[in-house]
């Protein structure tokens, strides 16, 4: 569950300064040596990337952000994983069975699974990895996902040395017993929290595991200079004899989107995002447009309305604000890189579909609803945003739209950490700009986590007992069709209550060098480059 900010264009104001720094710094950087490439082979070559922020961690028990996950998913493997269309597929586990009561899983590991340092990967490691996440001293945010395993609470409070429901009866067999049937459990096992690490060594290394990660993924860590660059090299012991095609991945750190674009244009990078200023020109040029790829993200951008703060405690007012915002214009401001949101769950959620009218742009209806609620003359309120260029742009657009129905919107721009802190406090932030991206492809990952009255991420402080009941009911229904029907009913009710202004689902665009092939955007995970190959120089 990742709270997201709009990152289409983060701050670009220090572009020139950074450019200078890179020009100066570029001369002193060591050159990396890579194997010489065999002519005519797909194998070989290096993918050059750039990013703004350093990687928070490479320890899968700790990483809970897109940056960490990008690297972790290349270093580690989970029992089950997702393919490019977000369907669950075997990974470390070759196959698995679920008992008839929905509580007992039995996973069979791939034979001869091995860690990058040559030691064999066994079921004991898989069990130990989940125990490490549950252990309080690991302080993993992922622990909550595995509390449903039999014996996990006793293990967490220290009264048991092992989790009773986590067993390794054979070196290649993992058994997991749940206290209750959990329709989402395989999704939880596909999270990188459940990545299989050499548990004993990871425990011994403690905080150093992040700089000396050992996994069974397609790549290994070769070099990590904090805030400078991070380099992965092919894992020679990876189970696939052919892939990855790349010899390595080099990511330069401290490069903002604007600079990334300039470096891409001068041929120093292979993949980049496209800054808003340059986007229209790129798309008008067929040759360059052909090098872009895009995908609708499993993500929803919205404006939260605090349901406890008058006048937003009145549903009619919240509906009015929804009608007052011209979402099509908001998307135009983003160069069309978005799909209008009619509800909360993104339209490309696998297997889930619900027809919702949403709130089409209708200022007259908005004014009528406001008058009905006793605010014919409008009112003044305040939107809190994180100060990126895109957030500011959208906030000003909202300001322009809302003033037309008499609502004066002041803009308060705050740093990300203070922003997250503030929206958690009751009756503090009336209106806020936020996004939510899926951790796993299931509607409950939007509905339950954002709108259940007890949810830690229910920042609008929305509470509807009928919705709570539906969401709780859905938690244990194993049959997907039946569960999605309940979810859809809950979503309809939430959309009608309008605890947020439904804005859009972002479309991610990246542009790649013509020599790069098979680079794909994943619907909700960071890109995986195992299949990427490049033309020889």
């Amino acid at each position, binding site marked *: 569950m990742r709270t997201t900010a709009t990152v289409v264009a983060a701050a*670009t*104001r220090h572009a020139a300064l950074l450019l200078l720094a890179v020009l100066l710094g570029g001369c002193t950087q060591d050159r990396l040596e890579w194997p010489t490439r065999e002519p005519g082979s797909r194998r070989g070559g290096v993918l050059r990337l750039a990013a703004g922020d350093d990687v928070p961690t490479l320890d899968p028990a700790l990483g809970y952000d897109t940056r960490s996950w990008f690297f972790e998913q290349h270093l580690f493997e989970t029992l089950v994983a997702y393919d490019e269309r977000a369907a669950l597929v075997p990974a470390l586990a070759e196959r698995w069975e679920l008992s008839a009561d929905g509580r007992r899983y039995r996973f069979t590991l791939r034979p001869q699974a091995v860690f990058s340092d040559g030691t064999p990967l066994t079921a004991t490691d898989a069990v130990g990895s989940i125990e490490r996440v549950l252990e309080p001293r690991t302080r993993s945010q992922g622990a909550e996902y595995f509390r449903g395993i039999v014996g996990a609470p006793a293990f967490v409070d220290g009264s048991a040395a092992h989790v009773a429901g986590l067993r390794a009866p054979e070196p290649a067999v993992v058994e997991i017993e749940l206290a209750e049937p959990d329709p989402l459990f395989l999704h939880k096992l596909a999270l990188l929290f459940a990545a299989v690490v050499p548990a004993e060594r990871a425990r011994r290394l403690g905080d150093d595991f992040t700089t000396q990660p050992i996994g069974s993924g397609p790549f290994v860590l070769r070099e990590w200079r904090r805030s400078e660059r991070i380099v992965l090299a092919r894992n020679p012991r990876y189970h696939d004899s052919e892939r990855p095609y790349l010899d390595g991945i080099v990511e330069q750190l401290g490069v903002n989107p604007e600079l990334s674009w300039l470096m891409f244009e001068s041929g120093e990078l292979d993949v980049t995002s496209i800054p808003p200023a340059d986007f229209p020109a790129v798309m008008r040029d067929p040759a360059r447009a052909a090098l872009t790829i895009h995908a609708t993200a499993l993500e929803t951008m919205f404006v939260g309305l605090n349901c406890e703060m008058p006048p937003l405690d009145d549903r009619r007012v919240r509906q009015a604000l929804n009608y007052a915002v011209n979402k099509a214009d908001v998307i135009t401001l983003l160069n069309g890189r978005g799909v209008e949101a009619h509800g909360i769950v993104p339209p490309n959620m696998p297997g889930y579909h619900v027809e919702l009218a949403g709130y089409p742009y209708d200022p007259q209806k908005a004014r009528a609803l406001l008058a009905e609620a006793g605010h014919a003359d409008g009112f003044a309120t305040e939107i809190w945003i994180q100060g990126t260029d895109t957030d500011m742009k959208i906030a000003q*657009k909202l*300001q322009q739209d809302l003033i037309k129905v008499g609502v004066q919107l002041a803009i308060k721009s705050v740093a990300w950490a203070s922003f997250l802190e503030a929206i958690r406090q009751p009756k503090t932030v009336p209106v806020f700009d936020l996004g939510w991206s899926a951790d796993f492809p299931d509607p409950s990952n939007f509905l339950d986590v954002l709108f259940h009255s007890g949810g830690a991420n229910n920042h609008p402080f929305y509470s509807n007992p009928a919705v709570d009941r539906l969401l709780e009911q859905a938690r244990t229904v194993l049959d997907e069709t039946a569960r999605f029907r309940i979810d859809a009913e809950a979503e309809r009710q939430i959309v009608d209550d309008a605890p947020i202004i439904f804005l859009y689902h972002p479309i991610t665009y990246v542009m790649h060098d013509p020599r790069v092939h098979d680079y794909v955007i994943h619907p909700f995970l960071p890109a995986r480059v195992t299949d990427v190959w490049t033309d020889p120089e």
Partner: protein
Amino acid sequence: MRGARSLLRLGLAMGAFLVLVAVIGPTVAPYDPAAPVAPQLAEPLPPAAPFYLGTDDLGRDVLSRLLYGARISLLVGVVAMAVTMVIGTAIGLGAGYFGGGVDVVLMRITDVMLAFPGLLLAVALVAVLRPSVWTIFVVIGLVSWTGVARVIRSEVLSLRERDFVLAARALGARHGRILRRHVLVNVVPTILVIAALSTSGTILLDAGLSFLGIGVPPPTSTWGRMIQEATAYYRVAPWLMLFPGAAVLYAVLTFNFIAYGLAGDGRAPGA
């Protein structure tokens, strides 16, 4: 001296135009500076009729934003300057005239304030306070009075030893009277020069704060924010940055010319 006088005249003429724009700007501005008026969003239009200075990515008219921004920039420049001058002059007068312990205490406070970079301190203050035009006035005043205090103090240090001050003191005049009638009137020329100079300083600081995204909040248009919003577009739509940049340059030059002209010898004190 003729050079200084023509510089002053040029400065005053430029200043008069700036004031005129600030006063009538909003009435002659062709559009609402906060409303989307261009036929398209996301792609700024280059300067051409009917948008003589182009439009920005939110479809707003650059000329109108510039005209409205003049009022804010000038207002911030002058009001923040006044705050600066009041604080700086009071501290400088007190420290220079009374000397001794008062001097030590006031000047150490000044040193402490000087130790913080002005912009950084302003950023911290704005973060704590609620951003509004009034916050900006006060914050800029609070962080820029130190230079003024130092210059005034050094002037007063020599003034208080002058015969007319000693004579007044011998005649039994009270401190308040001496400060007002004999000291303050004699530092007025200096104050005027620093005031002019600090106006350009405050205009720049305001632009800087807006550039960092913490100046006067939208929908009010300010030159600094215009420049900030233009940075993402500087290669595809340079006019977005050029015009407000030129406006800031013009305003700063205006007050610098006035200051140098007033100083008489082409050099401003304490600059």
